[in-house]
Every structure is written in structure tokens, then in C-alpha cells.
């Protein structure tokens, strides 16, 4: 669901094809019949943007028909936990949860949630604010965390308590009947039931089911909750932490996982630590640690992670006396995500931009982003080919049409040519968290340089420019530890390029080392919170355990692919574990749930966990180990709690903290929809969704007759993203040369459109033109007794390259998920007409 795997991840699909040959059943739930659907045993059409309704239906089916995996649910999830008396569900409040309040003025949100009422009920009263005051007086970070440990949560292992998570979940999803699923999604009831029967029958001790998703789930104003719905379902069915189970995110770029782990993202610093934030109680390092540390579960080690990170930033200048340089580290004070930044840029608030291998001129509400670029004083683009972003000032539709003249665009633009993958060395992290090293094969041509060269050279220049400053604000850059030049005599001799940084020195810093001896760290278990260890990324710690032994460079596959975990190929963070939370592959007593699904188990003789993978659990912690009351870290968990990162060691069906839009997923319509929310008619959209206000970023009203058709955007096998890496390649250009819009024969007939006709597509933002590809692979759906048409457009084209075409993202709107600010381009409203 939400993934067109055969088209967008064809080589990963090889394993699906193989599983099918071995008897697996493949179901594809998608608005369009794609090359994945063509391979599926069952194709299930749904209206774009209604996945939560469909998945919610599966949850309700599993619960009401007692087809959940009870032993797993009782022991490994928070189903038994009791929630506070003052929590109110969407069932009580007609579509919203308790805690909804108006957002501050000028925000991109109308409402936000306060999650105070969503919390676990504790066995004795607990005042977090008071605990925090006490904790601040502690002498060490460890003691500080100790004082933050809350009393245990109330539980009912019979799952009958009306305020138990299980009963709250059951009530919450009771509306998601097969009939309701059909009315909302357009999927016929009998087809839905077939899916429900197949998925539940294929889950349990002997069998597992996996869900595979991609942008079809994430690019919505309820994207995070869609994945949350699946997490909930997979926990109910006992499919998490087990072979053949899980939820597989198919990510889109070579190291999009790596660039999230090693985050070139505004909201987070290394290893999923929240960025210091002036809107939170983050004033000092102690405040930051108190706010961010979960005292029970593995995250209790947070102080070690952040202190080792600050040491990597500021080196010897980071000392306990100066809070390890915490004050020099910038704090965020707003949403600086992509869309928010482009809106700020359009208003003239952003003056300069450095853009590497990304192409915002073709991104969400593209015309608005191009207009934003025109407000910059300077723009640096580094890429392989001349992209739309580099050339907006002379080649964009606005300039070509004469609307704007290049002479009136003030932006100073640089375009630096890049080295390509085979011309550099370094690591990518793939979609399964596998870090792989690629070797440098040849020098890049001309003035093409690696991106690392660029940033290193820029840093050396800036360090020099600031060297003599005495301003306090410049202490951060002056103290920034920058030791990436090759050591004397070690620079490679087989290259004409000068000034590259030493990639292995960078990996050293990511992996971490003993501050004093510089000895590489073997594991994140070695990290300390006193400055004696330096480590940028605690989750990558272990990838480079000793000199000359970079595990990302491991290239020893399992012989004949047995057992197939291939622990000798690359390195998967954390600790080379291939399946996360794999303790759940064994039953509470530590035995495999079944011989067929054997993966990790407790070996009583050896007194340790063994199996085909690296156990994602304390290696020698026996299944019968009791939890230590009042303890921090993993000692707070018993030997039957597989979810070691969670404070209670359990998989969360109900999510008390961490989500901006409710502790449980709820079906809301996309921001643009042809129909009202049939589930909760009083709450059309996600109440806390983001919408950036701008005159060029307006939305169609619900059921607007001018925009009656659902439009979804997508990718094709033959191109990559906006085409910068494919539309300049003749071999790929010829495979999909022109922009098209896929529509059903029924809609084409209604609109008088024939195959290959030029069609004008209009949204509330603007219009573009594409050729019609009339195909029965698209079909009209019956939504609550009314025909709704869907059309689809691949978004690979732009105005540069061998093959060009209109920019599909000129149609999309800057609206976002409240948790992660991802946009909603998978479901919007449009009209189509034949171009006269």
C-alpha cells in the first residue's frame, strides 16, 4: 500500500517476485493499476488519501473477529496499560481528541494539541514539574535522570478495563466497518473482506505479513498517522520484530536514510536527537537533557549521546565548565522546513541559499518556489547537469513568457559541476539502514568536484575569515573542530584533484573515538557523558571499530544466501542488526514462536540470545529477568519487553507522546477533497494540519464543482524524481520522453478527450498541459453512491534536459503534515479539459 514497488524499487521487488514463486500472496492497494498491480494476486483500488480508513477497517476486523495475536498483544504491546481518566477520544468529541487548542497567531496551523490528557495513569500521583525541579539539583547526569523516573503505569492484563489501551482502541475503530470502508475508499466491501481475511490468516505464530509503503502513504497531511495505523495493526497481528513481518519504508534516494540519520534536516541533530529549540525548555545543557531524555528504556543514555556529539562539534573547546559548548550551538525557534523556508524566502527573509543535488524549482507549488528564488541575493547550485533551479532566471516559464525579465532578477547565481558516485569515495545508507561504502574509480572531469571537497574548502575559507574575530557570536565557528585534511604524506597520488578531505577522518568522527587516546569506539555502549568520548552519531558508532576495518566496506555475502541476513555485507545501524526489535521473534519465554519463523531465541545453555541476526536486546538478559522498580534505562524493563527504545519496553498501540495530531490515527480527508468526511462529518481535515498562507497557495473548497477530480502524482521506473539525473541521459529520455496524464476511458469520454490529445489540467493554484494517456488501468470509483474520477501524473519533467515538459508540482499546494511538514501531493483536486 502506498508503494508502487515494482516500478520505483524494481530490484527490491525481485525478492517479492521470488517470494511469490515460493507461494507468498501479494496484494496491491492503490488508486492506480500499476506495474506492481500487474504482478499482484489481488489488486485493490481505493480513492487516493483514504488509506487510514482502509487500515482502520483492518484493525476493527482483527479486533471484532478476535483475529489478533493475543499472546503477543498482551505481552509486547501497551494494550493492557490504563490511560488517564481525563482523556477523550474522537468518539467523544466528534472527530478530535482532548487537548485541542488554538495555535499562536501567525502560525501555519489553526490548532495544536496539548498531550497532557493522553498520558498513562500512574499507580501513584506524580508531578513531572516537581520531579524536574528535584532533578536539576542533581550532581551528575545519571542522578538527574534517576530523579525523573515516573511511578509504574496501571495495567489490566485481561484487557477488559474500559480505559485500557485495548478497549480505547477497540472503541476508536468501531466505526471502521466494511461498509464504512467501502463508502469512504470506494473499495467494494467483498474485496476489502478478502484482504482482511488474507492478512489476518497470514499472521500469527506460523506466518507473518509485511506492509510495504513509500510516498503514497507519507505525502499527506496525515502521513505519519497512516504509518502509525499500520504499526498499530502490525502490533495487533504480532508482525513486528519478526522475519517476514514489519513495515518496510521504501525510500527514494541513495542515502536519504543516511541524510536523515546524519541529518541535513533542521529539526534534528545526529542519531534522532531533537535539535536544541528556543521554544522548549532547552535553555542550558541540563535543561535540554531533562526535556529530551526518557529516563527508562535505552534512551536513558541520551546524556552520553549529546555530550559526545558536542565534543565532536567543538573538540577540546567543549568542556564540562562551558556546558560542552552548548551555548554556541544554534537553537531553532520555528518551523524551518523546506516549505516554510520557501515561503520565508518569497517574503525576502532568506538572502542566500546553497543547494546540492536538489531541485526546488520543480518542487511543491513550483512557481511559488521559483518566485522565491528570485528574491535571493545569492544562490549556489551544485549539480551534475544544469537544473531548473540553476537556470530559473532565464529558462523558467515565467521568464520565457516575458512575465519577468532576467534583467529584473537580482540573484547572483553559481553553478558548480559535481563529481558523480564512481568519482568519489564514501558511504550511502540504504532503505534498510545498511551502510555501504563505494570506492572511487576515476577522477571527475574538468572542474567537477565532490560535494565533500566543496564543503571542506568552504569551511577552510570561512575558518580563515573568522580566525581573527573577537566577537562572542563567532566563538562557535572559531571553535568548530575541523580536522579533515589528510595527514601529511597520506594524500592519494593517483589523482589530479587537490584539496579533498580525508573521508576516513570524517567517518572516524561519525563513529567516535576516545577523546584522549583517539582510539576508535567499538560500540555505543562505550559512550560517556563526561567528555571522555567524542562521537557525532551514536547510532553509527561501531561501523568503524578499528583502524583499517571499516565495516561498511564488508563485502562477504552469506554462502548461497543462507541464512540470508548477510551480516558480512555492509553494516546496518544499530550494531549491525538487520531486523529491529527482533526479541519479539521469540515468545515471552524466549522460544521461537514457531520453527518456521525462528529468528532470535534464548539459549538457556549459553545463557544468551542467539540466532540469525544480532539480537536487538541486552545480550545476556534472560527472559525471566524481572524489571527493577524505580531503575533507569534497560533495568526498568523485564526480560519480556522487546521494544527497548520505548520507555515501557512495549510496542505502542496508543501513543501518549511524540505525535502532534493525536494518540491514535483517525481518518481525515485530504486538504482538498471532493467529498465530506463520512466518518466524522464535523471534522473534515486533520485539525492540526499545516497550511502556509500565500496568495499563490490557495486551496479548493470541499466538493468545489470546479475541481471535481482527484489528482495523484507519482513516479515511473524510467525516471528519477524531477529528472535531473535521468532526463539528460539519452538511454532514459527515450523510454519516457513526454509528460502525460493517465485517465480512465470513462472520464476521457465524458470530457471528449482522446489518447494523446493535449489536455489542460487545472488546480486552485494554476494550469499545466500534458498529453492524455487514456487507459483502463484507471477507473472511476463509487464514493458513497457518487462517481469520483481519479487521474494520475508522473512528476519527472521540467524545462531543462534532453526531454522537457510542464512541471506537475506547479499544481500542488504547500500544505503539510503537522509532525514532519511533508506536503500532500498524493491527493488533490483538479479539473481536466481538452486543450483547444
Amino acid at each position, binding site marked *: 500500500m502506498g508503494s508502487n514497488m515494482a516500478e520505483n524499487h*524494481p530490484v527490491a*521487488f525481485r525478492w517479492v*517476485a521470488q517470494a511469490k514463486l515460493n507461494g507468498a500472496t501479494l496484494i496491491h492497494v492503490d488508486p492506480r493499476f500499476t506495474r506492481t498491480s500487474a504482478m499482484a494476486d489481488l489488486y485493490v483500488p481505493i480513492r487516493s488519501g483514504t488509506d487510514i480508513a482502509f487500515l482502520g477497517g483492518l484493525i476493527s476486523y482483527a479486533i471484532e473477529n478476535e483475529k489478533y495475536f493475543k499472546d503477543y498483544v498482551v505481552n509486547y504491546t501497551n494494550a493492557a496499560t490504563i490511560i488517564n481518566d481525563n482523556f477523550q477520544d474522537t468518539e467523544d468529541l466528534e472527530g478530535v481528541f482532548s487537548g485541542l487548542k488554538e495555535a499562536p497567531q501567525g502560525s501555519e496551523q489553526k490548532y495544536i494539541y496539548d498531550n497532557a490528557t493522553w498520558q498513562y495513569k500512574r499507580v501513584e500521583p506524580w508531578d513531572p514539574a516537581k520531579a524536574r525541579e528535584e532533578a536539576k539539583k542533581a550532581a551528575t547526569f545519571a542522578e538527574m535522570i534517576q530523579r525523573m523516573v515516573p511511578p509504574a503505569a496501571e495495567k489490566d492484563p485481561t484487557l477488559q478495563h474500559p480505559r485500557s489501551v485495548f478497549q480505547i482502541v477497540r472503541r476508536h475503530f468501531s466505526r471502521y466497518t466494511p461498509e464504512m470502508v467501502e463508502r469512504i475508499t470506494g473499495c467494494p466491501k467483498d474485496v476489502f473482506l478478502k484482504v482482511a481475511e488474507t492478512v489476518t490468516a497470514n499472521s500469527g505464530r506460523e506466518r507473518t505479513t509485511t506492509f510495504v509503503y513509500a510516498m503514497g502513504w507519507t505525502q499527506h497531511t496525515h502521513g505519519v498517522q497512516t504509518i502509525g495505523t499500520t504499526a498499530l495493526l502490525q502490533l495487533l497481528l504480532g508482525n513486528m520484530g519478526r522475519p517476514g513481518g514489519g513495515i518496510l519504508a521504501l525510500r527514494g534516494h541513495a542515502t536519504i536514510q543516511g541524510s536523515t540519520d546524519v541529518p541535513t534536516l533542521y529539526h534534528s541533530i545526529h542519531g534522532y536527537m531533537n535539535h536544541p529549540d528556543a521554544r522548549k525548555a532547552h535553555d542550558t545543557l541540563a535543561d535540554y537533557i531533562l526535556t529530551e531524555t526518557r529516563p527508562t528504556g535505552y534512551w536513558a543514555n541520551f546524556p552520553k549521546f549529546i555530550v559526545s556529539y558536542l565534543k565532536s562539534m567543538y573538540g577540546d573547546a567543549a568542556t564540562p565548565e562551558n556546558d560542552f559548548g552548548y551555548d554556541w550551538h544554534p537553537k531553532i525557534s520555528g518551523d524551518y522546513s523546506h516549505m516554510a523556508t520557501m515561503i520565508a524566502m518569497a517574503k525576502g527573509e532568506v538572502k542566500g541559499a546553497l543547494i546540492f543535488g536538489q531541485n526546488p524549482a520543480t518542487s511543491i507549488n513550483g512557481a511559488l518556489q521559483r518566485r522565491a528564488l528570485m528574491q535571493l541575493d545569492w544562490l549556489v547550485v551544485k549539480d551534475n547537469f544544469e537544473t531548473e533551479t540553476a537556470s530559473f532566471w532565464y529558462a523558467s516559464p515565467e521568464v520565457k513568457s516575458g512575465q519577468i525579465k532576467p534583467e529584473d532578477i537580482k540573484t547572483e547565481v553559481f553553478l558548480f559541476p559535481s563529481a558523480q558516485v564512481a568519482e568519489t569515495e564514501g558511504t550511502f545508507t540504504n532503505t534498510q539502514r545498511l551502510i555501504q561504502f563505494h570506492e572511487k574509480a576515476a577522477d571527475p572531469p574538468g572542474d567537477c568536484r565532490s560535494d565533500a571537497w566543496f564543503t571542506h574548502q568552504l569551511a577552510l575559507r570561512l575558518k580563515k575569515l573568522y580566525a581573527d574575530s573577537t566577537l562572542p557570536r563567532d566563538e562557535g565557528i572559531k571553535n568548530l573542530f575541523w580536522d579533515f585534511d589528510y595527514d601529511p604524506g597520506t594524500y592519494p597520488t593517483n589523482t589530479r584533484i587537490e584539496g579533498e578531505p580525508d573521508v576516513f577522518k570524517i567517518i572516524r568522527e561519525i563513529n567516535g573515538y576516545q577523546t584522549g587516546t583517539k582510539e576508535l569506539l567499538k560500540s555505543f555502549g562505550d559512550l560517556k557523558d563526561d567528555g571522555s568520548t567524542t562521537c557525532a552519531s551514536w547510532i553509527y558508532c561501531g561501523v568503524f571499530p578499528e583502524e583499517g576495518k571499516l565495516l561498511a566496506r564488508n563485502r562477504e555475502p552469506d554462502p548461497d544466501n543462507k541464512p540470508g541476513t548477510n551480516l558480512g555485507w555492509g553494516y546496518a545501524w544499530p550494531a549491525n542488526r538487520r531486523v529491529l526489535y527482533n526479541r519479539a521473534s521469540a515468545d515471552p519465554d524466549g522460544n521461537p514462536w514457531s520453527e518456521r519463523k525462528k529468528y532470535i531465541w534464548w539459549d538457556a545453555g549459553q545463557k544468551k540470545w542467539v540466532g540469525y541476526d544480532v539480537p536487538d536486546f541486552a545480550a545476556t538478559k534472560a527472559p525471566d529477568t524481572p524489571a527493577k522498580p524505580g531503575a533507569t534505562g534497560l533495568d526498568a524493563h523485564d526480560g519480556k519487553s522487546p521494544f527497548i527504545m520505548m520507555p515501557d519496553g512495549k510496542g505502542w498501540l496508543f501513543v501518549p507522546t511524540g505525535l502532534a495530531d493525536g494518540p491514535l490515527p483517525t481518518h481525515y480527508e485530504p486538504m482538498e477533497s471532493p467529498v465530506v468526511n463520512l466518518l466524522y462529518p464535523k471534522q473534515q481535515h486533520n485539525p492540526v494540519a499545516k497550511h502556509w498562507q500565500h496568495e499563490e497557495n490557495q486551496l479548493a473548497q470541499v466538493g468545489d464543482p470546479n475541481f471535481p477530480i482527484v489528482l495523484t502524482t507519482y513516479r515511473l521506473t524510467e525516471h528519477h524524481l524531477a529528472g535531473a539525473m535521468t532526463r539528460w541521459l539519452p*538511454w532514459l*529520455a*527515450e523510454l519516457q*520522453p513526454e509528460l502525460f496524464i493517465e485517465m480512465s476511458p470513462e472520464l476521457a469520454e465524458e470530457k471528449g478527450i482522446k*489518447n494523446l490529445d493535449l489536455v489542460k489540467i487545472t488546480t486552485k493554484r494554476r494550469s499545466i498541459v500534458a498529453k492524455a494517456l487514456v487507459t483502463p*488501468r484507471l477507473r472511476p470509483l463509487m464514493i458513497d453512491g457518487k462517481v469520483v474520477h481519479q487521474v494520475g501524473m508522473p512528476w519527472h519533467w521540467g524545462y531543462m534536459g534532453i526531454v522537457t515538459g510542464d512541471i506537475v508540482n506547479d499544481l500542488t499546494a504547500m500544505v503539510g503534515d503537522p509532525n514532519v511538514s511533508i506536503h500532500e501531493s498524493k491527493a488533490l483536486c483538479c479539473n481536466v479539459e481538452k486543450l483547444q
Partner: protein
Amino acid sequence: MPEPMGFFTDTSVCIGCKACEVACKAWNQLPARNGGKVTLSGVSYDNTVALSGIQWRHVKFIEQFSPDRSTGRWLMMSDVCKHCVQAACLEVCPTGAIIRTEFDTVVIQSDVCNGCRACIAACPFGVIEINPETNTAMKCTLCYDRMQAGMVPACAQACPTQSIQFGPISELRQRAQARLEQLQAQGVTQARLYGHDESILGGLNSFYLLLDEPEVYGLPSNPQLPSQKAAPASALSAAGAVALGLLGLAGLRKQRMDRLAAEERERRQQAPETEG
């Protein structure tokens, strides 16, 4: 001599990704048509349209849906030279440029070919065309160079779903039979093999598992050798081909391809009415 080698293309697992097309071009350094600047064909996801002197692999897409979508299939098939045991191209080649290799495959030697086009007209599958860069007839070599070095042909190596399988013909035939039986046991009654035995041109060393009639995929049910055709057969002998003049032959080929294309177009337009 080594065993006969070839391809078994199992169309039931083809995902239409076209990796075979690109891997072939990359290894054999073949150019894109018009430098890649072409137009949308409008025939499903097929934009490379046909096999040619620069297109040695070609993925076909066939959409079959009932009007109410209660049934529907999207068939895909990677087409390629069949490396016929009775190879018409080899039979008519006046210069001896076309050879049968030690792997029982059929290869055009570019440096011997004089571009006479006899083979183009003779091929019953429309496989061969002139490569405009060399002005010689070209087609799949089954990666003769890679085979000699003990390597898998580029397309078969790239194919993510093992739709294109490479190996000794005898082994491939066994695999194909087993796969056919598996599909038929699953109720896929329309599954069939094409070219796996001697009934078609003595056997195709690139043979197929299809999910419908061969014609649905643009493959002739009963292709003929020029030497077995009645009147023109003698005229189509190697020497005769040169004498006849090549326009006529090219015309014959064109007629046949036009007919196939027209049939396919027609089928496409009727597709919504076709029971899948």
C-alpha cells in the same frame, strides 16, 4: 563444442521495467533513438516501439481489461532476437556475415555485413534493422563477447525478476516446463510456451512463456522460413536476394510489420471489451 545457450523469457514475471533495454544499450554501446528526444507513443508504457538496429531488446505492454474492470491484466514481455535454429537471416545473408556460433546463437559480424538488408526482410519476427551509425544490419548477439568470457548477457544479468533467464537450452527447457506446470496448477490456463520445441523454426534458442496467444504479443503463430515459402522462396535465396534488389524485400518486411502493428493497435482499442 559448448552446449547450445540461450534465453528463456518468462513473461509472467516481467515487470516491464526496461532494465534489459538499457543494460543492452549500455553494454553494446548503442545510441538512443534521435538522441533520446522522441515523442510519446501513446501505446501503454512502450516508447521504444520496436526492435531495431539500435534497439536489441524491446519491452511490449498489452493492457487487457473488461469494461467493468472485474477482470484485468497488464501483460509485459521483453522481446529479442529468437536465435532460431532454422535462422532465415542466416539463410539469406549473401556475404556470410551472419554466423552460427559455438553457442548455437546467431550473430551478425558487423565488419563483414555490407548492409544489403536481405536479412531484414527475411526475419519473420522483425528483429533486424540497419544501425544508422554503422550502416550495417544489427541485432542481439546474445552478448557473444560476454559469453566467451564466461559472463551472463547484459540483459539477463540486469533483469530484476529473472523474467529473462540465460543458460543451456536443455536446462532452460526443463525450467520452462516446470514453471508452466506451476502456473497451470495455479489455474493460469492460458499459460503456454512458445518456441521451446522444434515446431517453430526448428526451435528458438530464445523462447518464451506467454500468458496469451502469441499474436497478442505480436509474435506469429507459425512463422515461415523464406526457403519454405512458395513462390518467392527461391527468389529469396542468398544470391537471389541481392539480385532482386532490396527495396522489394524491405517492402515485404514493412508490410508485415505494418500489419502486426495495425493488429496490435486494433487490439488495444478493443481492449476494454476484451475479456482478460
